[in-house]
């Protein structure tokens, strides 16, 4: 008898399975125009253009660690438009991986999402991010801002990051470059002016310097500082001159030699990609190259004596160059497949405006991109923000395509592990190989 019951249950399940398939078929036979741009189920209620009294359903993605903040900002947003009813759903998607999830299926992605600036070219190429000029009328009528106003409110560097092929795509929200954290108990301000003295001081103190060799985001700083350049071409390929001679007359081989020299020091510690936070808790390091997101970790590890400084300078053939870190930021983009593009844009604008950026700094120690927000007294005294500002003139905007990352990561790892060899010919070959990979055509 029991067996029969089980069979019955199984049959019911099977039937419901079939029934569901039928439903699906029924839906499919509708003309495709409406159903093609289907959003996640939550927003399906908003198929018809809403009258102003209708509830506007929006979805938003933000980083795991920003959820509390974003919940508050959403509440503020609702309060700012009291006449409109909203149903805003907040989801988790890290800025670092936003592109991966969005590009898998842009139509299922959130209406408003945060992402890291290096992902903009890929998102724009795939048509997964809205050119903000298309919705400018909405911004103008409801938020009273034009694109030009928004650009004027942000530091120019971040506007540049939000611009691709001449179009303005996203609202900058967090200045996200990296600089040098150091332990004020171990090193003095003078120690950290130059790579060599800094490394020597650490050697003497028996402490480590944590540097992420295996990432093209970090390890290119000496190349950029020495006048080398990368550019992203229209066909998605990257141009890279690291294997030649730079605009400042430095040979790529010499930069590599300098890096090899650094890496061979017993004080250098090659961090794994994304391993900076763990390095703070590890306790071995007195210097760690990281960004504002680690401010709290630095504070916990080194107490109030933690300090932040611009990248040290380095000397090649007697000439001193300032290392050039990559300027980047987090921004908020709007999904072009959103059902409520106008309101989505307003929400994106709202959570990145001056007040929101100040709030974000207070809660998350995130450096603002907004000029006025950066002038806020509380923000200005922050050590990380100060360091970012101090290196604003040397930092560069990294313009690279998708083929840049894997080869440069490998190259940095080779330097860290010392597998390249020290003679010029070997280094040149390694550089050439790396550049071949970076500049490879995109199939």
């Amino acid at each position, binding site marked *: 008898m029991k067996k029969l019951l089980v069979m019955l249950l199984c049959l019911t399940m099977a039937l419901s399975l079939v029934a569901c398939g039928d439903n699906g078929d029924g839906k499919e036979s509708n003309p495709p125009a409406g159903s093609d741009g289907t959003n996640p189920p939550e927003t399906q209620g908003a198929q018809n253009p809403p009258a102003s009294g209708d509830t506007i359903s929006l979805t938003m993605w933000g980083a795991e660690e920003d959820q509390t903040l974003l919940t508050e900002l959403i509440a503020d947003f609702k309060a700012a438009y009291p006449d409109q009813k909203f149903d805003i*759903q907040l989801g988790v998607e890290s800025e670092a991986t936003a592109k991966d999830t969005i590009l898998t299926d842009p139509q299922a992605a*959130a209406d408003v999402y945060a992402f890291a600036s290096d992902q903009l070219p890929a998102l724009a190429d795939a048509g997964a991010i809205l050119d903000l000029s298309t919705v400018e009328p909405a911004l103008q009528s409801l938020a009273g801002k034009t694109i030009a106003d928004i650009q004027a409110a942000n530091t120019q560097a971040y506007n540049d990051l939000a611009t691709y092929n001449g179009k303005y795509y996203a609202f900058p929200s967090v200045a996200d470059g990296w600089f040098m954290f150091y332990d004020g108990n171990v090193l003095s301000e003078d120690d950290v002016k130059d790579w060599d003295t800094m490394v020597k001081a650490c050697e003497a103190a028996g402490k480590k310097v944590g540097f992420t060799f295996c990432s093209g985001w970090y390890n290119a700083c000496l190349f950029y500082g020495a006048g080398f350049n990368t550019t992203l071409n229209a066909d998605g390929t990257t141009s890279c001159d690291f294997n030649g001679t730079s605009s400042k007359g430095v040979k790529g081989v010499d930069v590599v030699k300098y890096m090899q020299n650094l890496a061979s020091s017993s004080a250098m510690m090659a961090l794994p990609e994304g391993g900076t936070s763990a390095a703070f808790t590890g306790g071995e390091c007195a210097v760690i190259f990281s960004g504002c*997101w680690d401010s709290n970790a630095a504070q916990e590890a080194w107490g109030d004596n933690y300090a932040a400084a611009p990248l040290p300078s380095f000397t090649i053939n007697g000439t001193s160059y300032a290392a050039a870190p990559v300027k980047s930021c987090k921004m908020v983009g709007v999904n072009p497949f959103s059902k409520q593009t106008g309101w989505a844009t307003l929400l994106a604008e709202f959570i990145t405006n001056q007040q929101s950026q100040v709030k974000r700094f207070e809660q998350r120690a995130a450096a603002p991109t907004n000029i006025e927000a950066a002038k806020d007294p509380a923000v200005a005294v922050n050590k990380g923000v100060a360091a970012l500002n101090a290196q604003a003139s040397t930092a560069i905007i990294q313009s690279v395509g998708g083929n840049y990352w894997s080869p440069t990561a490998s190259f940095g790892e080779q330097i860290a592990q010392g597998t390249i060899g020290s003679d010029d010919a070997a280094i040149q070959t390694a550089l050439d190989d790396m550049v071949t990979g970076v500049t490879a055509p995109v199939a």
Partner: protein
Amino acid sequence: MSNENSVMTKEAVKAPETKAPKAPRKGHRLGGSRVGHNILIAILCVIWLIPIVWLVCMSFSAGDGMYVASFFPKQWSVSHYVKLFQPDTVNQFPRWFLNTFKIAVFNCIIQTCFVLMVAYATSFGKFKARKPLMNVAVMLNLFPGVLTMIAVYFLLREFGLTNSHFGLLLVYSASSGLGYLICKGFFDTVPRALCEAARIDGCNEAKIFTRIVIPTSRPIIVYTIINAFLAPWMDFVFAKMILNAGISSQYTVAVGLYAMLEKSLINSYFTIFCCGGILVSIPIAILFFIMQKFYVEGVTAGSVKG
């Protein structure tokens, strides 16, 4: 051609029970070698358990982070377990556990039914398409599942089933019929004489299936149930793909715990991850302990025929 060998098949089925290792343990003369033998086993077991012990240690350590200086924590604490049950924006373990449990139970039912149905049809059925169908199944099994993920995803999306547990359940169970081989191997050893006798008594095939074959197949059913139950706890690739709206409360245990290891979170959540890992393992371990005997019999009898 179905019943002339029934005598030998009966033997094959009975074999596991009759020859179970209940052999009397005679005191061995070479005491030294016996001690050595057991020490060797003990050492192996210790080696096998080291990572698990570390998992337990980490979950009970007072500190955070995964890079610790000593194997055993300096301070013990249950604070991470407490945190695990206090949901925050990252951690919603109780919800995840329920979600996964729900999916696992339904997956169990559907998958077990499907596997048994296909196995019975291919083992007892006598229809022309049987061999070709089985060959097609072998072919299909050669395609790696990860590959077809994107296509499955779009299919589900068109039916509006992404971000739903039902969609995920379909992914796990809908094509589970393909995993019928071991079960078929078991059914092949079921004595055909039994069925023949039932047929003479007027049973139809459906009755033979439900009244005769299923009751004699407890080991393989247990084996199938365990495997079906475990799948949702183990998988994170499909789950992450299907549950892509970023709504943490929808996650399964695997997706949720995996998200804890994101670079920006791992420092504060690694130990909580360990707690989650242990809590997931406990019910599975219990299931295994209870069902171990059947599990072994099931997999054995099945793979004998493969």
